[in-house]
């Protein structure tokens, strides 16, 4: 039995993960909390778990956060 961290990390799933639909529905709220250092992960642990595992949703979040931070 070996130690294969990349494969192990990919295969691990988090039961708290809420999936794309719920995460994207709250993404605007989550982004503002992250921007304000307002405890986003504590308030929305399922969204945080999802963004750690889903590349496309994390990419959308990065874009949204960048937009929030560049707002005039």
């Amino acid at each position, binding site marked *: 039995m070996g130690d294969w961290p990349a494969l*192990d990390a990919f295969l691990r*799933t988090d039961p708290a993960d809420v999936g794309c639909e719920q995460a994207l529905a709250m993404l605007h709220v989550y982004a503002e909390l992250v921007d304000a250092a307002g405890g986003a992960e504590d308030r929305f642990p399922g969204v945080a778990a999802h963004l750690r595992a889903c590349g496309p949703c994390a990419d959308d979040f990065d874009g*949204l956060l960048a*937009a*929030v931070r560049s707002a005039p």
Partner: protein
Amino acid sequence: MPWSAEDDQDWLRALRGSGAAHEEALGTLHALLVRVARTEVHRRSARLRLAGPELDDLAHQAAADAMVAILGKLETFRGESRFTTWVYRFVIFEVSSKVGRHFWRNPTVPMDKESWDLLPDRFGLEPTREAEWRDLADAVRRAVDTELTPRQRQVFVAIVLNGVPLDTMVTELGSSRNAIYKTMFDVRRKLRAHLVTNGYLNGDVGGEGS
């Protein structure tokens, strides 16, 4: 005096209303969406293999589609965030969706060819340690063949082996991101359970949490 929004209520009043303030609010919103869309397509441009006018065209299409969606859903704005953050979400999603469709129309990788030779690279299995991971790689392949449904296998091959973006599979299969993600979630659970049960990976069979 030109229209400007001091707060969310100004936006909602003007967008729901009519006359000069309504028209100015529409123009201001469109300009905002185009600015965010342009920034977003440029942020993703390295993966897009698009440049110049094509990128700008994609940004304008995303902004226009976001505008339609926003105006159709104004009544669903609940004030949980600033109005502008809420509208940014629409345009980011439009860019994301259009990028997925762009890859689907202009594929750089095959959808269904089974590139098993790329598996070691996908999971950081170094050639110098092949003697150690060869059995593991064979076990992954066996698990894919025996444990997954045809749909799960198709999604695994496209996304993991061939590197097809998840959003491109959404277009390819006429599905939703949530459904494809759920398929991959189940694939990950099944493969991990098989590999742990058969002694190829350490840890609990559930593999949940980190």
